[in-house]
């Protein structure tokens, strides 16, 4: 029996296929060969065959007949076998099928293996796809590894613990003792994953949250060291030391400081420091600033700090990088209720974003614009929003029209302005307005007694121009029916004047 072809050779061969049919034929042929090889229980080439199967699986072909073979590879003593076996398990096995439970014992053994890279493989697999049953069975092993002095394993155990907690929240308590000195670690990998673990625990349990509040000074210290420390080649990204860890710490601080005066005060200085000293020329610096702003806005920060945060967002809005503009708008939307006046100061920049080329930015700018409309700026804002309604994508028109109606209802400076605005919407985006706007409009017109003549004439004129938009036709027909006498009785010349 000739040796099964090598993985790279198979890839090369399949890539020469000129049609989908040709590819399928090659795949079927190879699958048949692999199947008979599996049937022969061949240990030597199992690894090669499973690897090929994984490639074909990525192309979209079924590979479930390889699942048990992955388990056999995991159970093998050869490192190469285990590597492919675990990869295969993560790609082919599914926690909804019972067969995945057969992995549990192998993983248990490998978690205690003498080689850390094997332990690493099993931790990774468990942390990536472990089912609730597996997590229950193996949580104890993970907890043990969380206390090891080997930082390579400790960092993985921390994230594995996060997964266990997500799958089986009741097990969270058992990891509490092991968290005791996690933050004393010097190793950044362990620090990062520890902060993730602590974050997960605090988010899930108010008791844990109270318990971990005492870590705030330590977190502040670690963050301070990262900012103040000189260049560290190992963790440097564009002049910033370990931005990933910085962002994670800021996020944990947010959770710990929320609703708590003492904690918020303890982190006030460091937040101000990060907000003012972080380099903003590259994305990485802005990522940290963004997280800082989110934290400042969520905790009980001093008003000066809050204004600083909003101003950072304001600067973001002027950034050339559209990604930065996008996150600025998203964040401003979150804070517009609580810090309304501060956000108002950036209104013109926000309105400018209505003209942005990016769809997501336009949508955010629209939502934010509506949130900023008030009695003082209604005329100016409405001009911009009506212009936007004219030129925006059809996807936006319904929401924009509804928003305009709502704003007009709340802040219309005069009845005539209100009716003019409504008419403008009906004529420019009439086919996109929501169904309920027709009766609302009719109600509005009914109540504006002094405007009946004006309204019916304008509606009639609009119909003469364009009779295709249904909501407009509905409102106009009703109006003409009700106030037709006002239209006919010698006021026709007004139509010409009002155009």
């Amino acid at each position, binding site marked *: 029996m000739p040796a099964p072809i090598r*993985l790279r050779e198979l*890839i*090369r061969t399949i*890539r020469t296929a000129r049609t989908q049919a040709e590819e399928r034929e090659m795949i079927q042929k190879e699958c048949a060969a692999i199947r008979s090889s599996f049937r022969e229980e061949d240990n030597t080439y199992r690894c090669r065959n499973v*690897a090929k199967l*994984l490639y074909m699986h*990525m*192309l*979209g072909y*079924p590979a479930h007949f390889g699942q048990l073979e992955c388990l056999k590879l995991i159970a093998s003593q*050869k*490192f190469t*076998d285990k*590597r*492919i076996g675990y*990869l295969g398990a993560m790609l082919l096995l*599914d*926690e909804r099928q019972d067969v995945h439970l057969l992995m549990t014992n192998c993983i248990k053994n490998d978690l205690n293996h003498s*080689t850390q*890279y094997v332990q*690493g493989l099993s*931790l*990774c697999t468990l*942390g*990536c*796809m472990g*089912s609730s049953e597996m997590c229950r069975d193996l949580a104890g092993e993970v907890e043990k590894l969380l206390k090891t002095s080997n930082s*390579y394993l400790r*960092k*993985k155990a921390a*994230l*594995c613990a996060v997964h266990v907690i997500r799958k089986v929240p009741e097990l969270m308590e058992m990891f509490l003792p092991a968290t005791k000195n996690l933050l004393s670690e010097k190793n*950044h*990998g362990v620090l*990062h*994953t520890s902060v*993730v673990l602590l974050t997960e625990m605090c988010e899930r349990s108010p008791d844990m949250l109270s318990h971990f509040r005492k870590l705030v000074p330590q977190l502040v210290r670690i963050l301070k060291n990262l900012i103040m420390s000189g260049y560290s080649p*190992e*963790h440097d*990204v564009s002049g910033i030391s*370990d931005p*990933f860890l910085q*962002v994670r710490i800021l*996020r944990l601080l947010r959770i710990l400081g929320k609703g708590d005066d003492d904690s918020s005060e303890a982190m006030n200085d460091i937040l101000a420091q990060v907000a003012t000293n972080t380099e903003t020329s590259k*994305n*990485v610096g*802005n*990522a*940290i600033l*963004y*997280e800082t702003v989110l934290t400042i806005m969520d905790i009980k920060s001093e008003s000066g700090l809050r204004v600083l945060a909003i101003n950072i967002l304001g600067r973001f809005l002027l950034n050339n990088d*559209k*990604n930065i*503009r996008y*996150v600025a708008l998203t964040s401003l939307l979150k804070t517009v209720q609580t810090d309304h006046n501060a956000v108002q100061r950036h209104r013109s920049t926000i309105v400018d974003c209505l003209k942005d*080329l*990016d*769809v*997501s*930015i336009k949508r955010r700018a629209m939502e934010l614009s509506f949130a900023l409309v008030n009695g003082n700026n209604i005329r100016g804002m409405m001009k911009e929003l009506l212009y936007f309604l004219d030129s925006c994508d059809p996807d936006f028109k319904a929401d924009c029209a509804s928003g305009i109606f709502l704003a007009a209802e709340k802040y219309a400076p005069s009845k005539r302005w209100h009716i003019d605005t409504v008419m403008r919407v009906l004529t420019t985006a009439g086919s996109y307005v929501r169904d309920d706007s027709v009766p609302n409009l009719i109600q509005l017109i009914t109540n504006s007694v002094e405007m009946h003549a004006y309204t019916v004439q304008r509606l009639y004129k609009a119909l003469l121009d364009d009779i295709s938009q249904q909501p407009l036709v509905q409102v106009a027909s009703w109006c003409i029916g009700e106030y037709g006498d006002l239209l006919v009785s010698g006021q026709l010349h007004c139509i010409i004047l009002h155009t």
Partner: protein
Amino acid sequence: MQFMLLFSRQGKLRLQKWYVPLSDTQKKKISREVIQMVLARKPKMCSFLEWRDMKIVYKRYASLYFCCAVEDQENELITLEIIHRYVELLDKYFGSVCELDIIFNFEKAYYILDEFILGGEAQETSKKNVLKAIEQADMLQEEAEAPRSVLEEIGLT
């Protein structure tokens, strides 16, 4: 992170890493949808998309799209840095990485990803440490594949 996809400009999947349990059918459907959405984006658009209850963060490097789906409360900007770090790792490992490297050595691309990210979160923030771990694991693999007689010869059994 819920999942990461690498795909070509023609929509061919080069790597798929899922951190949430889904059936093969569901994964296929989601991949197709996300790939279509991202390929439809124009160059002037930002790198973020809202989709279902998640955020899609993507960036194109030469002929490959790197695409992550993250939870709604995730920091999109740092996710871009995560993507960039993974690209840097691939680049260092393969030496000026290109799409063909990832096609022909897809299992290594997974190994590298699995040393960088675990369960959807970064496990190591030092580039050097990730590469060192991969290097050592690769050496273990070589030793495992060495012919038996050679090892016995030099007395290592």
